[in-house]
């Protein structure tokens, strides 16, 4: 009997070494552990063993069986792992192949900057008003205190549609529309397209402005600078500040040109700021009392501040675009960068 078991063990070890497939493994199970397998046969042969030896021999056979089962199980798990690994290997992809996706489009840089400006001022409580692009003389000029013989009304600058209507040359007309329909306190932005008959390397006959207006009690020039400081800090860099210098707009008095300290060189002087440390970004001032009065607002009770931002200018500064033409060429290689 023991001899038989030893022979069987040798045979088993030999077979184990030969197993290379699931089929081999199944046959192995059949031959050793199956109902008609060698171990079952051994068990049957137990009847021929003497009664006193039977328990011991039974244990020997059982131990052998457990051993074979363990071998089988280990091998079976190993086979499965190998199979899975092979499958995974086969299914593996070149992860550097191009992605399948709907390519995203892009917002135009002017839209991005317009929204960014709106977001900053919306946080300060500014509403957004969009006026018409086709304006009448009163809204574009007269009521903004632009006298009839003022140079900016010149045919050179304004596109006329007929004797009454023209293409707005500035978003400032939005101030009038807002003040006509709303009583103070007013905080409003007027973004939009404007048109001037000017076309060269640095001018486009159509461009975009953002007008800002605050009308309330006790608003001063100091508020204009304080507000614009916050604006440029959010738009460019927390470290920048503004500088005011005298200028002239018919609808503000005093009028100021607003420079921002150069965000490229921190005021040390570089090519962006033309070595002055300052960059001209916008114009503004204290709203002319005549403009308030033209809208039925008592200039003794209320005062206002206004500013006008050139969106193209800010966009070019922000993204380092050196030619305004690029903004309207709409070359996809340009657009996709935003």
């Amino acid at each position, binding site marked *: 009997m023991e001899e038989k078991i030893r022979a069987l063990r040798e045979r088993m070890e030999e077979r184990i070494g030969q197993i290379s497939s699931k089929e081999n493994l199944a046959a192995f199970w059949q031959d050793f552990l199956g109902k008609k397998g060698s171990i079952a046969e051994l068990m049957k042969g137990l009847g021929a063993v003497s009664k006193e030896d039977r328990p011991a021999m039974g244990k020997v056979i059982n131990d052998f069986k457990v051993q074979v089962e363990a071998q089988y199980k280990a091998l079976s798990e190993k086979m499965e792992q190998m199979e899975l690994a092979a499958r995974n290997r086969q299914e593996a992809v070149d992860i550097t192949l191009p992605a399948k996706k709907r390519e995203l489009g892009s917002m135009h840089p002017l839209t991005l900057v317009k929204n960014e400006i709106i977001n900053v001022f919306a946080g300060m409580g500014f509403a957004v008003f969009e006026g018409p692009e086709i304006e009448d003389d009163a809204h574009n000029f007269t009521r903004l205190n632009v006298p009839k013989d003022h140079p900016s009304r*010149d045919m050179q600058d304004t596109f006329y549609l*007929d004797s009454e209507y023209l293409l707005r040359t500035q978003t400032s007309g939005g101030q009038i529309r807002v003040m006509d329909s709303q009583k103070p306190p007013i905080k409003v932005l007027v973004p939009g397209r404007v048109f001037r008959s000017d076309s060269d390397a640095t001018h486009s006959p159509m461009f975009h402005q953002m007008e800002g207006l605050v009308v309330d009690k*006790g608003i001063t020039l100091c508020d204009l600078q304080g507000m614009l400081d916050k604006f440029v800090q959010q738009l460019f860099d927390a470290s920048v500040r503004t500088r005011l210098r005298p200028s002239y707009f018919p609808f503000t008095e005093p009028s100021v040109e607003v420079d921002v300290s150069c965000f490229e060189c921190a005021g040390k002087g570089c090519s962006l700021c033309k070595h002055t440390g300052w960059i001209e970004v916008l114009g503004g001032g204290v709203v002319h009392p005549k403009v308030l009065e033209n809208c039925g607002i008592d200039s003794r009770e209320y005062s206002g501040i206004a500013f006008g931002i050139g969106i193209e200018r800010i966009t070019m500064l922000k993204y380092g675009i050196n030619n305004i033409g690029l903004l*309207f060429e709409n070359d996809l290689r340009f657009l996709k960068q935003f």
Partner: protein
Amino acid sequence: MKVPYSWLKEYVDIDITAEELQEKLFSCGFEVEELIDLGAEISKVVVAEVKSCEKVEGTHLQICRVNCGEYGEDIQIVTGAPNVYVGMHTPAALDGATLPGGVKIAAKPLKGIPSNGMMCSGEELGLNEDLYPGAEVYGLLDLPKDTVPGTDIREITGLNDYIFDISVTANRPDCQSVLGIAREVAAVLGKELKMPATDYKTTDTTVPGLEIRVDAPDLCPRYLGHAVRNITVGESPRWMRRNLALCGLRSISNVVDITNYVLLEIGQPMHAFDMEQLQEMKIIVRRAHEGEKIQTLDEKEFTLTTENLVICDGNRPVALAGIMGGLNSEITEKTTQLLFEAAKFARDNVRRTSRALGQSSDSSARFEKGISEYITELGMARALHLIEELHCGEITASAFDCSAGAPREGKHFTASLKRINGILGIEVPAEEVLKILKRLNFDVKQDGDTLEVTAPRYREDIEVGEPDLAEEVIREYGYDHVIPTFLQRATVTSGGKTPAQQRKDRAIQVMCAQGYNEIYTLSFYAESDLDTLKIPADAPERNLLRIQNPISEKLSVMRPLLAPSLLNIVVENLKKGNNEGRLFEISNVYAPAGPGERPSEIPHLGFAAFGDAEDFFTVKGSVEALGEAFRLKFEVERAEDVSYLHPGIAAYILCEGERIGVFGKLANEVTGELKLHKDSKANHKIFLAEIDYDRMMSHAAAGIRYKPVSVFPAVVRDLALTVSEETECGSLMKEIIRACPHVTDVELFDIYRGEQIGEGKKSMAFKITFSPEDKAFTPEDVDRFIKKILGNLKFKLGAEIR
């Protein structure tokens, strides 16, 4: 506006450098666009005294030994100049010197003879006859004998000077002159202004019969005339020639130079008529007759209208008012009597005439910005003083002053100190306010908070009230005194975009998510852009809103459609080798309205898709996705009549039965005419869409309301139908939905054509989703639905189950 530093110093004791003055001017509102250093390019050029000259045989050269003081008392320089002589004082550019135009001088032999530099002519130093006498002589510049050898030549020739090129804002026409800027400089430096002399004596003589009349006082509110006799036309003095030259004017003759000098110095355009050429001894200022002609000093002829103002003698125009004199009354060498004109002309009329005729001058530039009557008076007095100072004529008693009656005093008003500070937001001490206003020549008296103010006569920009005074105060006091406050006293308001503005942002985002790149195109294009799109002559889009004064024909009509703009950008991209792409824009189109009515602005959403990957259905997908973003259901309707779209591959977009837009493939005949390579496949796959944005949004629901989701599972059944070739997918789908209220989705998943189906037929397979509401469907339920659907399809569309 060009202002020489040395000329400014005639009126103000300036004790700061040109750079410092530039800063000062900037701070008070006068930006110096360029500070020109006249001698910037000149270095190491000094006075040389020629000690000896030795001719070099067989050449035109001479070997000179010169004394250059501290630079060397015996320097050998070879020159080819014929006018060199022993004892001459002349500029020498020594070894390492630089001259205008980037010229560098080095010691090097000339024809083998060592030379330690170069002696210079006036022109080599950038001088002309007006800037320095003898500068245009052929050969070396002959300097006075009292010049000290070794002295920097810039000091000797006045090239140690600067020109301020100042940008003057439109509200300060009074600063369009050297004196005007000098007034500002005096104020900002707190110095006294030395006024130019304006005194003169007249003789008792009058010019018999001379008459001046203004017939158009609206266009000429002030006209001064003064006759001068016994003119001796000659050269102007050096100081006058130099100042004119620094401002870029050449000297012509004493009389003409006086008019130019007064223009630059005082800012008053002057004109001088040769009195002997004036017919009937008359000057009449009037509107031109229709078709009247004038030949101006530059020999150009103009045909005039009644909108143009002319100065006439008894019979004909002798000057185009404010712009240029007439050739017929020009001052010549033979002139013996002249009539000076100093006038104020209406600025918008001068501008309009100048634009209309395309004729402008230094005078018209100043009149356009505005001249005050104070300047007119000052200009005339100064011109007459100069006649006297230059001894070139006899100032007669024949003086004329035609006035429309404007007041001769500065504006007088009261202002509150508190309000001035209220505008600024800071407390400027009362004494500072007074000091500043006085420095600016305002006459001010203080009584507590009240200021009695009289503005200087030349400050016509000053308006009654505090804002103008606030600006005057702060620009002198300094903007650095402004303390930024963040809307300290303003009421809290709510901000942000309106729901409609937010919806537009969403539309932009949806288009971007669909792969479209946002573009910005001009609102105007050429009418021929509509021809490109074959828009018929009688189409409503041909009713165009036109710009009266376009930059060019190419930018002359306000666009009635976005499509031409989109197509232009597609073509430009294809030309650049961008072979595929998606573009969109939300922007206005325009249409004219009835007379006196406001033309319309209609926002459109336009998009274009081009390239190999695109077809009608990719674009249809974009249209539907856009609709879904706003929970809109779009239907399509074949569009065969859109001139620029393929009649078989185009559709109107319907929303709740209303046409809101159109999309499709660019028509073959349009594609064929594009200036693109015909063999590129990409060039033949261009799709355009254009949607009336507001009309689309009018169908969008305001908000979202949640609808409960059924707890019972939906059932999906496939159904393959055989139909005739003409049957459209859409009508089958519509019928399936109509036949059974439980159908929530119908999706086409296959189209098959083949022998088994038969000719002229096709098979279409649909996936139909049935969604139960309050109880689950049994298979029998669904069979019933299918039966009903099939019955309807057979009856209405002749469809058979396959």
